[in-house]
């Protein structure tokens, strides 16, 4: 244990390279992206260095501390409430002017700030030079040059930060933004009023509080009024009077005037510290964008990328899938031979291995998909995707950024719902979260593959594509519906940076991919393991079933019958009869297993809910499988495997399905139901957490499930009427 611990917060604009620096300092896993606002979680890292315990907190990337978005609120509240010892403001050197806006706001809060001028090498190639000494002098804070992706300057940055944390020097007033005379007067008046009249003990710096009150900052105003007690109304009146006076004077809202004046202050600093030569400006990003957001080429290229992503996911993923399949099979055989006969063996061999095995097989697909999404994010292409898609998303009443969570929904809904955090308006966020589950997640794909493969063979790909398309259409229609009813109002302004393209760092891509793949693996280890055990128990018990036929003696009888035939037959025919015998016995064993499942707890549950599913063309086995899918969609296939009493999915399951009374129409209906009905437990939990309201989760469950029922009813019954099977 070290003597001293220091908390260091990392602040900065999105795309300033903040996350890369965080990774360099802490070495921990964290998402790195180029898409504005990818760092939505508060991430921490603990390290010991230079005899100190350093707690590094990565704040969300923001352009300002005006609390418009969740990120800004999180970042500001951390600085205000947790008072970190030092705030490192990471500044993209090629974007100094805009970056300084956040910096001036940090300075006003009255915390100790140190500047990391990041990617100065890039800035230099763009023809900008920054006088760091002058900058340091003008703002009265240490300035360090860093190159995040080359790990340069990080040690100096940390040493300076520790030094600053230990210093006791007061922050000089003159280094802060000075507003015009009228505003400064109003600030002083309000400061006086708070100090002398209200006399409340404030948690925040007085000047800053006064500024925020004048800016009509809702959050701060509320907090201060709470503290003001019986002086509440007096304070409110004073603030309103001052605001009215300023409004009169400037003919504009005070907060807008103050924003302008902060930029005025910044302009002064820029003039003294920045020299830029417009020569040899090579802007590779613009050249790339010439093609990628081109009037005619933009969309084809975008569709090509998405197509390539799915192609890569499923065709390249097929190879490791086969290896995993082999390993799982070998493992099952090994366990079967190794373990003594017992209930435990039954559980492991028939419950856990097939259950978990049929899910883990999709790990390659999921990792490849997340790797591709990470490439889109880290290169900066995601922002271009939003740029291209905004017009279309706008039709649903959504922001182009909503496209990204929705796209991620094709991988897994859990990170997709989380990704909706980057949307600034709460209505947009909830709307996106509600329609994201209709983007068919990768866990549903195995179900489609099995069903479509069994009933549509050659056209399986087209049918699966149609299911995905239905999901997209439903989400668009639902989006419009919600926007005009539940979540009325205009969508947030589309103000989005298009960051320069960057070559992705392979390590960051892998971290990215792994972070999300981990969620999938955790699901296998947790819910899916539990789910397969529960399903096995429900289908294996009660153990003593009264069979409709005494299978054991029937097998003996059939065996004897064929034996007699064999001895009677000539040598040449023996093999054929032998095969017939084996088939007959296998048939009996399967029939017994199917009857066992039918009479198990699971079968009983399934049969009791089956009437609900009958109009959709889904039998009791399908009902049970869908029920188990609530735990996780991946389970649906494995429970169908158990219910149809087949050894190994998916081939055996497919032939069992064809032999059952399912038709292509009912298979299609079941696929649609899988597409639309309630999301898995993990997603439901995430929806609850991200919307912050139980009611939205409940709404999502009810809406999607009733919609699934209605759509499948129409498709199945309609299909029957027009004579499709």
């Amino acid at each position: 244990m070290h003597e001293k611990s220091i908390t260091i917060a990392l602040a900065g604009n999105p795309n300033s390279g903040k996350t890369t620096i965080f990774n360099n300092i802490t070495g921990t896993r964290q998402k790195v992206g180029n898409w504005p606002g990818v760092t939505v979680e508060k991430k921490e890292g603990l390290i010991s260095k230079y005899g100190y315990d350093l707690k590094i907190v990565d704040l969300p990337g923001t352009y300002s501390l005006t609390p418009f978005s969740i990120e800004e609120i999180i970042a500001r509240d951390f600085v205000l409430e947790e008072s970190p010892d030092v705030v490192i403001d990471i500044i993209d050197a090629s974007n100094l002017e805009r970056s300084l806006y956040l910096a001036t706001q940090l300075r006003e809060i009255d915390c100790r700030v140190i500047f990391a001028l990041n990617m100065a090498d890039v800035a230099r190639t763009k023809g900008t030079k920054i006088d760091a000494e002058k900058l340091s002098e003008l703002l009265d804070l240490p300035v360090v040059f860093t190159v995040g992706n080359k790990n340069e300057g990080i040690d100096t940055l940390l040493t300076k930060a520790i030094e600053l944390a230990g210093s006791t020097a007061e922050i000089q007033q003159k280094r802060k933004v000075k507003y015009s005379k009228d505003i400064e007067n109003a600030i002083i008046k309000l400061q006086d009023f708070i100090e002398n009249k209200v006399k409340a003990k404030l948690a925040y710096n007085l000047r800053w509080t006064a500024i925020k009150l004048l800016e009509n900052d809702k959050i701060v105003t509320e907090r201060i009024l709470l503290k003001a007690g019986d002086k509440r109304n007096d304070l409110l009146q004073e603030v309103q009077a001052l605001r009215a006076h300023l409004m009169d004077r400037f003919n504009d809202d005070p907060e807008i005037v103050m924003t302008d004046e902060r930029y005025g202050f910044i302009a002064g600093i820029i003039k003294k510290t920045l020299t830029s030569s417009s020569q040899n400006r090579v802007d590779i990003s613009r050249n790339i964008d010439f093609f990628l957001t081109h009037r005619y080429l933009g969309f084809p290229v975008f569709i090509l990328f998405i197509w390539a992503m799915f192609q890569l996911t499923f065709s390249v993923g097929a190879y490791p899938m086969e290896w995993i399949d082999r390993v799982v099979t070998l493992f099952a055989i090994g366990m079967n031979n190794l373990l003594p006969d017992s209930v435990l063996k039954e559980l492991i061999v028939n419950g856990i291995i097939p259950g978990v095995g049929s899910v883990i097989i999709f790990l390659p697909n999921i990792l490849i998909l997340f790797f591709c999404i990470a490439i889109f994010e880290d290169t900066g292409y995601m922002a271009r995707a939003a740029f291209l898609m905004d017009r279309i998303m706008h039709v649903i009443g959504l922001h182009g950024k909503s496209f990204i969570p929705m796209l991620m929904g094709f991988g897994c809904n859990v990170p997709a719902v989380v990704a909706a955090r980057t949307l600034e308006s709460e209505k947009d966020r909830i709307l996106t979260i509600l329609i994201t589950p209709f983007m068919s997640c990768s866990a549903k794909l195995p179900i489609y593959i099995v069903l479509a493969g069994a009933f549509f063979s050659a056209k399986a790909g087209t049918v699966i594509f149609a299911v995905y398309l239905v999901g997209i259409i439903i989400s668009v229609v639902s989006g419009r519906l919600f926007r005009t009813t539940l979540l009325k109002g205009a969508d947030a302004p589309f103000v989005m940076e298009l960051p320069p393209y960057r070559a992705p760092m392979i390590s960051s891509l892998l971290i990215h991919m792994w972070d999300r793949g981990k969620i999938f693996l955790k699901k296998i280890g947790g819910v899916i393991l539990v789910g397969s055990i529960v399903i096995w128990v429900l289908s294996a018990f009660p153990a003593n079933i009264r069979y409709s036929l005494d299978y054991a003696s029937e097998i003996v009888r059939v065996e004897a019958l064929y034996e007699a035939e064999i001895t009677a037959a000539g040598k040449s025919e023996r093999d054929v009869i032998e095969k017939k015998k084996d088939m007959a016995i296998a048939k009996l064993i399967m029939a017994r297993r199917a009857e066992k499942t039918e009479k198990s707890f699971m079968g009983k549950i399934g049969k009791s809910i089956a009437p609900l599913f009958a109009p959709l063309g889904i039998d009791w086995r399908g009902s049970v499988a869908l029920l188990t899918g609530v735990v996780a969609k991946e389970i649906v296939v494995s429970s169908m495997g158990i219910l149809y009493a087949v050894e190994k999915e998916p081939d055996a399951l497919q032939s069992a399905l064809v032999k059952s009374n399912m038709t292509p129409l009912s298979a299609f209906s079941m696929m649609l139901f899988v597409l639309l009905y309630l999301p898995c437990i993990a997603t439901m939990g995430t929806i609850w957490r991200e919307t912050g309201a139980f009611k939205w989760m409940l709404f999502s469950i009810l809406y999607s499930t009733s919609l699934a029922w209605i759509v499948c009813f129409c498709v199945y019954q309609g299909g029957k009427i027009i004579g499709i099977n």
Partner: protein
Amino acid sequence: MLLSEMKAGQSGIISAMGGTGVLQRRIREMGFLKGTRVYVEKYAPLKDPLELIVKGYHISLRVEEAAQITVDDVKQDFL
């Protein structure tokens, strides 16, 4: 002239801004200030949103948002 009426390849100086408080403030924070030169890089393939260069970086706005910004001194520019 409104920013939304400018063509790709033109630049102009912001002279006035309208719109609601939140939008006004948000775009100001991103560097759209009176007297700042904005360059229209391009329109998205579906003519909305548009890509602008302001204070040396690229940003996109919707046409309806750009329609809140009035510009002067519009000219063909090479940036």
